[in-house]
């Protein structure tokens, strides 16, 4: 078990730099999830930590030791690949034991470790099968089992569940969470899936174009996004963004002028904002409610009934807003509705994209963790 520290890590492929100075401290036993759009460098960062790619500049520490120049095998890490990377000609047992045979482990010890991991993952019935005789979920568990038997300091997962169907994904996700709570090993996990990130992570790292946008607990990111990118990336459906103007700023917050008239007081630190400056107002669909006589009025472009809740896509004179309300909707596409939201539920972003910090912990989170890298 170990902590991992990335200090100003950069990576270039040929002339193209894809990781631009990443700083990150991962604590011992922490479950950290990397999220970000496709091509933002999540896998590259993971492979840098694994030692599968050379670090162009910066320092990488595992358990206090600088490991930049250490071979992957010497870093005491284990990696679970998206494609499973099982040896096709070996059975499950051999797949799990292959990496151990060198590590000065006796036959009996290998056997014990393989069987223990197999039991933990409930694949002990499958030990004689070849990978092609397994289902996707079983293969994934073998891949995880192969990581477990190595007893690594750090587990690295690169989108391990993306080839599984929805139900199996949930099940395996729970198993990974259990594995983490059982082993208390440091885990770094790459995913596209927000639900995976939110449910598994102690902390989420949001990456964009090779830079860290924000690091924080799932709820911190949800309630206190540090900037427009994180606000738009975390949460589904996406946060509504409204281009506004500052009408006034004071110690009680910022008064913004909405595009179609009317003002809204938002309790955020004005922090030098001056009237007339453009800002972006952000409000999550859950906080946009249908109410006659609300702030806005618009035409319903689409109604999506999801059972436990429904989504309304409303067009208010060119301004598109999404609202999520519980239960079934009685609204029809083409109908007119009034929409309302409170200043307390809104976020305000400067033209640079940076969020203004809240005056109160209105949304119930504690503090903000911001780690923007210039």
């Amino acid at each position, binding site marked *: 078990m170990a902590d991992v520290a990335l200090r100003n890590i950069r990576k270039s492929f040929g002339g193209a730099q894809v990781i631009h100075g990443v700083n990150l401290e991962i604590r011992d036993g922490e479950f950290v999830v990397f999220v970000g759009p496709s091509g933002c460098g999540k896998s590259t960062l993971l492979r840098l930590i694994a030692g599968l790619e050379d670090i162009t500049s910066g320092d990488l520490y595992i358990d206090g030791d600088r490991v930049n120049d250490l071979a992957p095998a010497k870093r005491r890490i*284990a990696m679970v690949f998206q494609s499973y990377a099982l040896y096709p000609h070996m059975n499950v047992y051999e797949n799990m034991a292959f990496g151990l045979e060198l590590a000065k482990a006796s036959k009996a010890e290998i056997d014990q470790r393989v069987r223990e991991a197999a039991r933990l993952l409930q694949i002990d019935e499958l030990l004689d099968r070849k990978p092609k005789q397994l289902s996707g979920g079983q293969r994934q568990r073998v891949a995880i089992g192969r990581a477990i038997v190595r007893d690594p300091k750090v587990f690295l997962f690169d989108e391990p569940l993306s080839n599984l169907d929805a139900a199996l994904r949930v099940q395996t996700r729970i198993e990974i969470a259990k594995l983490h709570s059982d082993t208390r090993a440091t885990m770094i996990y790459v995913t596209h899936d927000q639900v995976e990130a939110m449910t598994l992570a102690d902390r989420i790292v949001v990456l964009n174009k090779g830079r860290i946008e924000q690091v924080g607990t799932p709820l911190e990111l949800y309630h206190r996004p540090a900037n427009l990118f994180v606000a738009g990336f975390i949460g589904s459906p996406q946060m509504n963004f409204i281009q506004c103007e500052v009408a006034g700023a004071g110690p009680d917050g910022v008064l913004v002028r909405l595009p179609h008239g009317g003002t809204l007081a938002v309790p955020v630190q004005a922090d030098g904002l001056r009237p007339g400056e453009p800002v972006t107002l952000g409000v999550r669909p859950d906080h946009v409610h249908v109410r006659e006589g609300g702030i806005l009025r618009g035409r319903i472009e689409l109604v999506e009934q999801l059972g436990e809740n429904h989504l309304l896509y409303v067009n208010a004179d060119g301004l598109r807003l999404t609202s999520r309300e519980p239960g079934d909707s009685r609204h029809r596409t083409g109908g007119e509705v009034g929409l309302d939201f409170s200043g307390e539920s809104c976020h305000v972003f400067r033209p640079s994209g940076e969020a203004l910090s809240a005056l109160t912990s209105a949304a119930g989170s504690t503090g903000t963790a911001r780690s923007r890298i210039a």
Partner: protein
Amino acid sequence: MTEAAATGTPSAYASIRGGSSALTRTRVRAAWTFIAPTLIVLALVAGWPLARTIWFSLTDADLNNLGDYTFIGFENYLANYDGEWFGLLTDPDWWLSVWNTVWFALVSVSIETVLGTIVALILNAAFPGRGVMRAIILIPWAIPTVVSAKMWNWMLHDQFGVINDMLLRLGLIAAPITWTANPVTALWTVVMVDVWKTTPFMALLILAALQMLPQDIYEAAKVDGVHPVRVFFRVTLPLIKPALLVAVIFRTLDALRVFDLIYVLTANSRDTMSMSVFARQQLVDFQEVGLGSAASTLIFLIIALLVVITMAAGRVRLGGDSR
């Protein structure tokens, strides 16, 4: 065809349960339509000559007068006159040529397989100029055998050859070696030239197999800290084994009917005579069509037998899924 039909379509299902459906019949007919031309061509160019050779091997035909022969049964193979045995099966020259051929095939194919694998592994690694190297390495294989054999003949010439010259200058030998005439060196010389010529072919086949391998398992092995040599023997080799065996079988077939290389390098020398050279000598030089055909028939049987043994030993199913 049954495999193609049994893909789970309702009609295929019906055909399993009882009688063949119209769709299955159409498919079977289409399949025969497509293979028929090949079967006809094969029968004409392979089946007919083979049948004719087997027939001639049972006669006393003579090259001077092919129309005039009598059926003599198996006397070309084995005959007994006055308590003494005659025929191909008692001919020490024939058995020497069989031994030469098998020895040549075993040694040259073994060397080519090992060298080809090494070359393929090198070509499979990423290095600048890899594409050019891949093209260059094929040159020996692209040269017609007769041309490269003639070329080597000159290089190996005991008086004017560049190889003797170089070895003499380096002081490695005291007197020129008659590479192709000396019984000790002749067959090894043939093997060497064949290795020079055919290793690229092996390397290319193996390279194709290497490039089909998934890359992620190598990264997994790297993370697991498995030594590269061990990865080669435990991962790469088992995974390319099917392709490797196919290449070995092809090359063995080829080597067993070796003719042009040996004929050009050493002519009719007894020391290096292969089965094919023996058959040619009987048929053309001695005009004994019956005996030559008998030798050819035996070549066919020996090769067929060896292929069956190899395939059984490697348990490869050519064409089936072999992993």
